[in-house]
């Protein structure tokens, strides 16, 4: 297994405040990894640091090449899609325009059109609403749109920031099922940050636990799920 993303001694700062204190972790190509942690542990910051949306020091390698210091849009163009917290929907544009925007860096017209159809297969509700202003979608629909928009990049790595946030449990199950499918069938490596630890551990094959800006535990998802401390702190039994 090759290491797709390799993060070493990653520190991140918001002004004077340091949010990450020397984070080290790696993602295997084709894996589905979850990053667990409480509020304020640094999960969102970790994802933002990968895309250079926050001031950082340390080293981040993607496919063996350093991406530290590159601009956000150039990192995205390497094939790293980021579904941000709050979904980042282009609310004034239609659903279809949102999908078009996801593929804005691509030039294969036919491929883009067939990918839009594929997204409508994954998320039929988006097809029903494809001419509708994206801001009128429900929270769950917008989350699906955000995932679909990210997939339109044909990413090799997808970063998801709390996709379950604010969604009804049934919709979350559905969304996670689709994420699993994307990981297996499209061979997209996925890093998902979650507070819903139980569901994330069911889905993932690898897991990291982050506390106050440091990785405190790592292993296969099963190991982590069976760890007593994790069970008490994050799973609640």
């Amino acid at each position, binding site marked *: 297994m090759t290491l797709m993303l390799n993060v070493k001694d990653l520190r991140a700062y918001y002004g004077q405040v340091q949010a990450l204190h020397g984070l080290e972790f790696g993602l295997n190509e084709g894996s589905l990894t979850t990053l667990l942690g409480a509020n304020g542990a640094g999960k969102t910051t970790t994802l933002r640091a990968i*895309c250079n949306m926050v001031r950082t020091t340390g080293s981040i390698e993607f496919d063996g090449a350093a991406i530290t210091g590159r601009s956000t849009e150039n990192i995205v*163009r390497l094939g790293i899609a980021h579904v*941000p917290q709050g979904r*980042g929907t282009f*609310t004034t544009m239609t659903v279809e*325009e949102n999908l*078009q925007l996801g593929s*804005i860096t691509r030039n294969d017209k036919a491929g883009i059109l067939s990918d839009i159809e594929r997204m409508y297969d994954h998320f039929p509700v988006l097809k029903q609403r494809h001419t509708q202003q994206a*801001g009128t979608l429900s929270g769950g629909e917008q989350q699906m749109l955000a995932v679909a928009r990210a997939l339109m990049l044909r990413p090799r790595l997808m970063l998801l920031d709390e996709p379950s946030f604010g969604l009804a449990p049934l919709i979350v199950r559905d969304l996670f099922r689709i994420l699993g499918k994307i990981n297996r069938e499209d061979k997209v490596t996925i890093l998902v940050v979650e507070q819903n630890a139980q569901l994330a551990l069911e889905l993932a094959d690898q897991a990291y636990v982050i506390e106050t800006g440091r990785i405190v535990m790592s292993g296969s998802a099963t190991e982590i799920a069976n760890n007593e401390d994790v069970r008490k702190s994050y799973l609640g039994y």
Partner: protein
Amino acid sequence: MELFTNQVLAGIATGAIYACMALAVVMIYQAIDHLNFAQGEMAMFSTFIAWQLMQWGVPYWGAFLLTLVFSFAGGIVIERLLFKPLAKAPILTNVAGFIALYAIINSSAGLIWDFTIKQFPTPFGSSPFLGSQLISTHQAGMIGVTLVLLVLLFIFFRFTRMGLAMRAAASLPESARLVGINTSWMIALGWGMAAAIGSIAGMMIAPVVFLEPNMMLGVLIYGFAAAVLGGLTSPFGAVIGGFLVGIFENLAGTYIPGVGNELKLPIALALIITVLVVKPAGLFGRPIVKRV
């Protein structure tokens, strides 16, 4: 009744000026989400460039094209030098920047070309259009140019990927970066396009109001009024708004006692305020729907 028809026709003729300017206003609003108070001065400066080129013997359409190129490049340079550093600054800082730019361009034009009024040629001639004394061939040509511009802009924003990317960068920069759009250059491009459209407006307007550094002062306010009335998000609305403002201004001047020529400008400002209170999205602007 004939008075009424004549006033409406004359209103459409002046409205073409406002429509042209409103297009430039909407263009920059699409790109940067602000109204650029220096827009009129930029257009005026471009028009002086065209005038200067013609003084040096360049034929009209050659000067027209060169001015477009110059304005496009100039818009980008202004963005890179002045407004890129202000990108993360609060709105008020940007407004101060616009006003500074206004003063700088206005004074520079005065310094280079002085404040005497100059004739500016029209490519369409100035005989009566279709025998009507109210609309000249120049004004008809101006309406035509405005409509062609409108169609081109519509196609650009609606059907090209670059147009889509520009809209995305303007509405939500962070999300735009996350789909790989270089938002900083999109904004610069928006400035370039707005400056180029403004220069067309300037060159169309100058034969009517005559060329001098303060020629755009009133026109810009009418342009704002037109853009607000039509909807700041809609180029189509801006053009319709331009014609409506022109007609409204003329009718008010004729039929409301005491308005006359002197109070026409306050009418435009009153219109802006009324629209913002009653229908903030304008006649054709897309109201932004948000789920809460």
